[in-house]
């Protein structure tokens, strides 16, 4: 069995009486691609925010790499190589694609203020490395031809890919992706899926992703967790989830709509 990487136990979050996340437990193992699905408002993003420190849970625990990270600041969690992307496109819009990804390498800086003012050897070597890494990451996400474009001028699909590239540039151990394929067309969705598979294989990065496109999730993920009204209603490999009665009810039942936006 692979190593346990992330453990969420009894995570609960109330927003003024609303139980956005309600006693959720699950685990992510090293090297997996895991899916987190559920209808709109199920609490997926809230759970991501809890894991990455953007919200502290009302109760419950998040354990990453055997360390309790509950309530830790987002930047500290990122330093532990747990990095997330955002549901709304999120990028440094006034910068070029290249500078966006280069900014993502922030944690790999190995020089100080003095080095940068005097342009010491250490500075130049480290910057060269980071720029190489940036270029590599861009090539990985098939965006190198766009590297001098201003991020705000990118198409929606490319903005999503840029969000992924920025996160990837941090060299994470666990990557949390909030709807990486939302709003992408068929071709772009397939490209995204193949990039994610490559990332997992080549870098050994573990991925936990939220997605409404079930075909996308089923084709990628080994393990899927289903949330509804903040509660975990099912967990298991794609085949089991597909047939799970509660999941079928939630996704096909008449009182829920599952529009992906």
């Amino acid at each position, binding site marked *: 069995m692979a190593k346990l990487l992330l453990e969420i136990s009894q995570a609960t979050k109330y927003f003024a009486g609303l139980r956005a996340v309600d006693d959720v437990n699950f685990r992510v193992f090293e090297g997996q691609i895991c899916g987190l699905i559920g209808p709109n408002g199920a609490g997926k993003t809230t759970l991501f925010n809890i894991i990455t420190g953007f919200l502290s849970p009302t109760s419950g625990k998040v354990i990453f790499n055997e360390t309790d990270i509950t309530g830790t600041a987002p930047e500290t969690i990122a330093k532990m190589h747990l990095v997330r992307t955002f549901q709304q496109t999120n990028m440094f819009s006034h910068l070029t694609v290249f*500078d966006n990804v280069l900014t993502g390498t922030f944690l790999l800086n190995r020089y100080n203020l003095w080095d940068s003012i005097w342009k010491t050897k250490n500075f130049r070597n480290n910057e060269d490395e980071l720029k190489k890494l940036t270029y590599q990451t861009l090539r990985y996400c098939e965006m190198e031809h766009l590297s001098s474009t201003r991020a705000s001028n990118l198409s929606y699909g490319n903005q999503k890919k840029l969000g992924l590239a920025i996160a990837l540039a941090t060299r994470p151990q666990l990557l949390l992706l909030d709807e990486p394929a939302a709003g992408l067309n068929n071709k772009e969705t397939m490209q995204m899926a193949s990039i994610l598979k490559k990332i997992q294989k080549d870098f050994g990065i573990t991925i936990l992703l939220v997605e409404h496109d079930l075909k996308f999730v089923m084709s990628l993920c080994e393990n899927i967790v289903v949330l509804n009204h903040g509660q975990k209603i099912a967990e298991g490999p794609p085949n089991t989830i597909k047939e799970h009665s509660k999941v079928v009810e939630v996704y096909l039942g008449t009182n829920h709509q599952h529009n992906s936006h």
Partner: protein
Amino acid sequence: MNKTNLIKALSFLSLFSIPLIISNPYYGDVLIIYCIFVIYALSLDLLLGYTGIISFGHASFFGLGAYASAIMTLKLHLSYWLGLLIAVGITAVVAFLIGSLTLRKLKGIYFAIVSFAITQVFRFLVVEWETVTNGAAGIASIPPPEINLIFEKIAFKSEQSYLFIVIAFVILVTLSLYRVVNSGLGRAFLAIREGEDLARSIGIDTCKYKKIALVISAIIAAISGSLYGHYISAIGPRIFSLHYVSLPLIIVIVGGKGTLLGAFIGAALFFVLPEFLGFKPEMKMVIFGLLLLMSIIYMPDGIASKLGQIRDKFFVKNGEIKNGKVTVRN
């Protein structure tokens, strides 16, 4: 030293010939004030243009630098250089304290308002603490900087000699800032400006780096304030007024924020151009108020970035790929 470095070094050295060419003290005066406010505006640009923090209290640091170094030299009889160092140190500590108190909680206009209120508290302290600051009357006959050579003292009294000093500081500050904004630190600042959540998600401690930006910026503002005080030789509580708050804002926004070059362009428009046109001071402020307004509405990135766009049309862009290699502009 390779060829391009040699050319760069020579071109910087050549700037020092400016004081030799300009013998007219009037033009010397205009240039000195220009240089001092370029430094002041550069310091604000780091905060406003790069980090996206809007400060209406930059005069705190400008004034603190001016007052502290004047008091050091005049009352404690320290040399200018030691006084400057201490003034910069004091300002850095004050900026750190202000940053620690305010930057975590306050964003946007709230920080702008508080920073202005802090400036007014400084003004009050300077007026009330008469034994040290001479109160409302201000400090007069601040001595010019001196260099103590073995045989004789050289005082930088004339416009020509003072111009040497301010040019040296302009070069020093510009180069340092240029290197800073093109390093990981500068990228952290830009990331904060562009979106704090995303910045935090990639490991940037936004609060810490905002504080660093504030302290660096305050240090540079203190240098310009000190140079200002020792040049005009008399300062008063007015140095903390809205006027000194608005000058760097106008210069940076009209010139172009987040570019460094903008400070040079804006200050040239503000301090050099009117000398040739001969406006009344109020009319000058009306015109620059209008310029500021038009910049904000029609050209939010300022003149410098318009120039940048033109440059990008003709030269390779940062990150552009040419012959399979990424070009990186340094």
